[in-house]
């Protein structure tokens, strides 16, 4: 039982590290995103589940490994309006890379 707990904990640590060293940026689009985004006067709720994204389309996904190996998925063909959304994806990826870079710099600042 104790071993199981330790295994589970190690598994979580492993996943956590893997998540921290790789970078994933996903862009979804669609006409009906009610399942994904709900909004009333005061609260914004945002959830991505198998059910909520059924009516959404995966437009692009960028996966970057720690050694900068990059996997890029882009829907094809892209309509004119989707090309504009691809720019948003690129901007989000750029922002994520910059933020991750800043995070690494912070760690370096602490340990040096």
């Amino acid at each position, binding site marked *: 039982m104790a071993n199981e707990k330790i295994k589970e904990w190690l598994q979580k640590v492993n996943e956590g590290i893997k998540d921290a060293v790789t970078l994933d940026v*996903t862009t979804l*689009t669609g006409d009906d995103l009610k399942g994904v985004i709900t909004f009333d006067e005061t609260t914004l709720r945002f959830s991505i589940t198998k059910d909520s994204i059924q009516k959404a389309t995966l437009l692009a996904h960028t996966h970057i490994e720690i050694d900068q190996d990059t996997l890029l998925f882009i829907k094809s063909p892209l309509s004119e309006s989707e090309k504009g959304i691809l720019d948003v994806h690129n901007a989000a990826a750029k922002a994520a890379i910059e933020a991750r870079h800043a*995070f690494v710099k912070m*760690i370096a600042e602490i340990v040096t």
Partner: protein
Amino acid sequence: MEELEALFPAEALDYAVQISAENQWQFMLDLGYLAKENFSREEDRVKALHDFRKEYHEAGFKLHHIGLPFGLNHQLSEGEAHFLRKLAGIEGQFNFEKLPETGRTSLFSRIAKMRLDLLGFGSGANDLPFSFADIKALDDAGNWFSKKKFSTRIEVLNAMGDTGDFVQRAWEELYRQDIVYFKLIPTVQPIDELEQGKHFSRALWKSIGEDSKTWKAYKKAVLDRNDGDPDTKFLQSQIARPDNSRMIRFIQLMLQSCGAYTEEIDEDLGPVTYDALIDAVYLLDKADDDDDDPDLREYIAYLGQGYWAFNQAFFFEAAARLNKPETDADLFKLKAGVVSSEPEDEEMSFYKRFSEEFGKLQQKDKEKADKVQAGILNVAKKLAGKEEVHFMGFADSFRSSRFFKGLKRFFRLVGRFFKRIFNKLAEFIGEMKDRNVLNFVQLIFRKAGDALRVLGEGLRFLFSDRKIYTKDSETKAPLVITDFTMTFDAVTTVQAGLSPEVLSEHMKHCLRSSRSLETVLVFIGKVIHFLLLLAGPAGWFKLALEIIRIFRDIKKGVDPVRTVK
């Protein structure tokens, strides 16, 4: 080959500023001997060289006149490149004595047509014969200014040879009270701080005056709008004006002359010109302190809907102030009694050393250039039989190298920036109550305030749920959301069919947030580092646990990427 080496001294062959192959050929391209798209084809380069050498002889020049040999059949020699720069440079090195002959293509017709084309009066086909259409274009250019300025076509043509001066005169005469409008959907450049605001309006009002028609039109179309959106119909009509295009052409020329812009002069203020403009304005902003606090926001403003306004009057005024000659005495002039003047002062002597070193570099190059230049000057005068055909004196080769030209101006800007900083420091020491000192202190505080604002934004973003959303301006419902996890994985959800403006707005928010994060994370890193030092070994473990607890608390909610699995 040996014969050539015997004829021409090695030092002359060694002469030449280091320029790239493309730079060497630039004037061949400008004069229409060769089309840019054919540059890589050897047979076209051979033909271009053949045409040039033929016209060189037809113009009356002999091989030995330039003191340097022609190159091989497919290569432009340093001497030829230098010769072309002398004749076709745009800094007023070469003056015409008479107009080129009509109905013929010659070396001189190409230079005349290139000048017309560069300033937006020509047809662009510089390899065609000089024609009556070109003479009419010269008349148009002359009539464009008040007639007092130019009495003959030759005067117009020679005035066009000094592009910078011509542009400055045109601005003084015609565009002093004008505004440049352009349309550009920004992709990566954050435009938040450039949104139309009081800085831009105040600078514009100051530059062009409240009674000017352009100010009134701007006020009506942008400032007085109830809905906050600009009058796009008006802006579109302004962009379509030929004068607007010509001003953009002039701006591109000015940017090119200071080395900031190397692309084609095409009257299109697109992303490349915009970036060059921002760079140039930034340098001006740093170097010019006639205004207490010059600022990018005083030059350029985003009006909304993809439209921009550029305060070109402010730009040209700042450029003109920087171009005023300054003597060494001026450079080191201090207020009487402030500090005892002094080259011995550590910071002042830094600037002096900087100037001296740069002067030596110029002198060295001048000596090299003079040897070849003397020969060319004599030949040109003999051919013309008159003194009017001349090249301007000092180190033309140095000046006409585009690379060095940009570098020199850059260093001049940097030098002046340092000079002004030093003056400020000197004043700070000498006159604590002086207004400039107070402004300087205010500036420091403002900059510190800006830094704190960025830090605040970053902290708010980091310790929030890290969702960036752009709302519908009417329903206020979110249309685009980017959700960052604690490790900065991201999911963006976009409602289909959104306008480019909304998407652009969202991109801007994303990039601004990530940039503010850099500041805040470095700050946090420094704080944690400092705390670790304070805590000592015994406190490290406790502190680490506390940090982990804080970050765990931050990481609330569901990680969207994992939930998809």
